[in-house]
């Protein structure tokens, strides 16, 4: 299990009179991962990840304007392995679904979903190992566009990177 905070890169950059960006605010992030041992040191893993925050417009002049509340849910499968005695890594692929609180504006046609690739690194400090705790950094990438953006004149999707930092906990016996 993982709990942390997530920062997303810009979903949309546009200019109407003045330039502005659209991006989710810093969001709490939670995920649950299940692992299946393969040949040592590999594990198969599957994860469900959720984060939720306000989607907002950020004007280059410094002002912000909320657009809607946005939740994302991602499901992914992949491989994990021990990299060092104190570090493990995972590489997963899956899909991310955007779930706006209202089908409005940017999301007037509902929340789209996109393929996603994710990498995660867990660092296990000695003092935390006995509790099954680790510090985790994970990053994922996907392409983003909506029907409303296409109507607006965007022809290409935009690459979006999300980075989350937090604490993971693995249940079971620990050294």
């Amino acid at each position, binding site marked *: 299990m993982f709990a942390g905070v997530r920062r997303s*890169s810009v979903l*949309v*950059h*546009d*200019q*109407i*009179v*003045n*330039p*502005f960006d*659209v991006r989710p605010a810093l969001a709490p992030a939670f995920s649950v991962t299940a692992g299946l041992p393969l040949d040592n040191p590999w594990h198969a893993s599957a994860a469900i990840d959720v984060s939720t925050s306000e*989607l*907002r*417009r950020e004007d280059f002049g410094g*002002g912000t*304007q*909320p*657009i*809607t509340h946005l939740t994302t849910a991602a499901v992914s499968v992949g491989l994990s392995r021990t*990299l*060092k005695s104190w*570090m493990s*890594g995972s*590489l997963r692929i899956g899909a991310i679904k955007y779930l706006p609180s209202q089908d*409005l*504006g*940017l999301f*007037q046609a509902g929340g789209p979903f996109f393929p996603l*690739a994710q*990498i995660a*690194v867990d660092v296990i400090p000695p003092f935390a190992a006995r509790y099954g705790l680790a510090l985790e950094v994970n*990053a*994922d*990438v996907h*392409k983003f566009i909506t029907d*409303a*953006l296409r109507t*607006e*004149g*965007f*022809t*290409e*999707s*935009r*690459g*979006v*990177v999300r980075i989350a930092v937090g604490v993971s906990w693995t249940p079971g016996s620990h050294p």
Partner: protein
Amino acid sequence: MSRYALLGFALLGLLACTTPDAPTHTGAYAFDSNGNGTGNVFHWPGDRIPVRFWVDPRGNMNELVQNAIDVWQDQLIYGEFTGVIVSDSAHADVQFVWSGTVPPTVPPDPGPPALACGGLTQNDSIGADNRIYGALHSSILVLSGSFTPGQVEACVRRVAIHEMGHTLGILAESPDSTDIMFATPVVPLPGPADRTTIQVLYHTAATILPPAR
């Protein structure tokens, strides 16, 4: 950190490096009170969203105004405007009423547009502090003539969207009959120029403040 992890993060960064160009937002017509770029500019500021509408309970005014709200919300995709219908006229920012007879609720005629109705949007006054006093008032009037109920319904739908455009801050009329903000609207929905105009308006500094709440 392991070189594998660094390599993985770098690959994700490369995958994400697509940065599409922003579309051009051109083709807006004048939206200020003089209709030539020299007049007052008004729009609802972010801290007044959602704008509160009160509607005449007679006929299908509620449906007409909700449709008009939805139509304009769809033109503004970055959270610039949302609207909500409220039951208390004393706490409304905008009031929509019938002026004169209330038409029957029937399906709109899909045929050529008939100028079977008109509309008007007004504010009480603007103070020395450049603030509007009182709610904005929009009214829809069914004109006399040999129009079918369906033609009247199609007309009041167009005019409700047109008057909603005025309440949102398009203070002038479009010179183009393909726009919903043409003085006597004949198209059922906002066109590309209407869309660009409302977008540019909501990203332009206003010179008039909304009524105090």
